[in-house]
């Protein structure tokens, strides 16, 4: 797994850094070691894409942190009932389709496993691509196993399962506007589903070799980044499920 490259001490002539020259010349700098920060090689591109993903996950996290704080506040919120001039708590617990949610969780976790296999598969493919012509070099027994395809199927399976869960909610009489608790169930699961759909689409793009003429390296990077994103979505789902089940 690529790591941030170590800084390489550069021979920098002593100049002012606000410290009146009392400290030794600074080591490193931008990306010391790489010839051109704008057009890095494969490992540089991978590193940059992963850095970008890490940063991108922050606002997604903030979105759900924000929803969580609204959830917590709303749950505990006393509201003035003008008829009695009393403050009451009107949080009506939702009858969650727990069984369906648990099945969906298993599906999602399985897809996390398969996407991880896909990620490693692509990494191996890229690493060994130059050596493919050498007889005896193997890309592994599973080199053609469609881990990516399986993940996409499982991802769509999860989304379908969520749709079924919503149907069960509606059948039990819990719609979006039934009460604050049900609003949050739809809100949290719906927003998560939208983000997961984004991940499914990214995997579809990565998997469409023929149509898009993308190089193996580019596709590997997309799969790698999407796989980490996918793991994040799985963890996020577990968190949402825990919040809904335990804090209702």
């Amino acid at each position: 797994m690529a790591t941030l490259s170590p800084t390489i001490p550069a021979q920098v002539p002593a100049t002012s850094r606000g410290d009146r020259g009392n400290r030794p010349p600074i080591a490193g700098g931008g990306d010391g070691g790489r010839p051109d920060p704008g057009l890095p090689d494969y490992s540089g591109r991978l590193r940059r894409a992963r850095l970008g993903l890490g940063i991108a996950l922050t606002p997604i996290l903030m979105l759900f942190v924000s929803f969580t704080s609204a959830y917590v506040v709303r749950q505990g919120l006393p509201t003035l009932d003008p008829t009695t001039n009393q403050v009451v708590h009107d949080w009506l617990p939702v009858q969650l389709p727990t069984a369906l949610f648990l099945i969906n969780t298993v599906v999602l976790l399985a897809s996390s496993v398969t996407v991880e296999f896909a990620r490693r598969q692509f990494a191996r493919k890229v690493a060994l691509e130059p050596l493919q012509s050498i007889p005896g070099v193997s890309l592994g027994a599973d080199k053609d196993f469609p881990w990516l395809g399986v993940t996409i199927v499982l991802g769509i399976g999860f989304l379908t399962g969520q749709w079924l869960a919503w149907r069960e909610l509606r059948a039990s009489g819990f719609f979006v506007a039934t009460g604050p608790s049900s609003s949050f169930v739809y809100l949290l699961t719906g927003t998560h589903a939208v983000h997961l759909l984004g991940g499914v689409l990214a995997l579809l793009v990565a998997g469409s070799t023929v149509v898009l003429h993308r190089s193996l390296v580019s596709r590997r990077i997309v799969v790698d980044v999407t796989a980490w994103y996918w793991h994040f979505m799985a963890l996020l789902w577990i968190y949402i499920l825990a919040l809904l089940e335990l804090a209702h």
Partner: protein
Amino acid sequence: MGFVLLAVIWLITLISTYFFIAKTWWLPAGASAAAASIDHQFAVTFVLMGVIFVAAQMALGYLVWRYRANGSTGRASYSHGNTKLEIIWTTLTIILFVGLNLIGSPIWAAERFRPAVGDATRVEVTGMQFAWYFRYPGPDGKFGTTRPELVDPSSGGEAALGLDPKDPASKDDIVTGIMEVPVNREVEVILRAHDVIHSFFVPAMRFKQDAVPGLAIHMHFTPTDVGSYEIACAELCGLGHYKMHGILKVVSQSEFDEWIAAHEADKQQQQ
């Protein structure tokens, strides 16, 4: 150019400061018990901030004139800063800002941390698009129930608040369009709103509080001067926000009692 810049900066500073000192457009005369301490905190803040304002602007004007390049071939004095100076002025600024805040905090605590006293004059103030209604609990000391489904603003008075006639406590509630309170007695206001957020603001009383739908907010102030004071809505509430004003009349205790009694008598007659 450097001198013009200095002159303009100094002039703007001095002219603006003049109007703050001259108080040409200023706080209305304070008519509540809290006014003296609040106005004092204003004064302290104005003096401290005023000194900084004038000093900083004058320094800026001075420096751009004094250190202008005017054909001299010398270089600027090469310096990356002065850590000691940084520490000194940072410390002083912290002391000033935090100190200013802490001196004002007891006043905030006195106004807001404690509930109203037991024998305060209680008035429920309800804001709705675009009028203020005031309700007094009457001799029984209890506010009757209101129901949103009974609200009918076009009828005014009790119906505008949705007062439930079936509740016995409602029978002696007085609903008015003018807020009248006795002088030198604490007033407890219970702020409510029907539709959107409004805000009850009486500049002379140094009193403001948002009226939020879904909440009944208890606040208090003590009027100390007899007179009529305008109430302005201070939270954007729709197209009529600018004309949602009311009147607060501060009268003697006996006048207040008569006023309440007159209203009670009216209510008896109607029933």
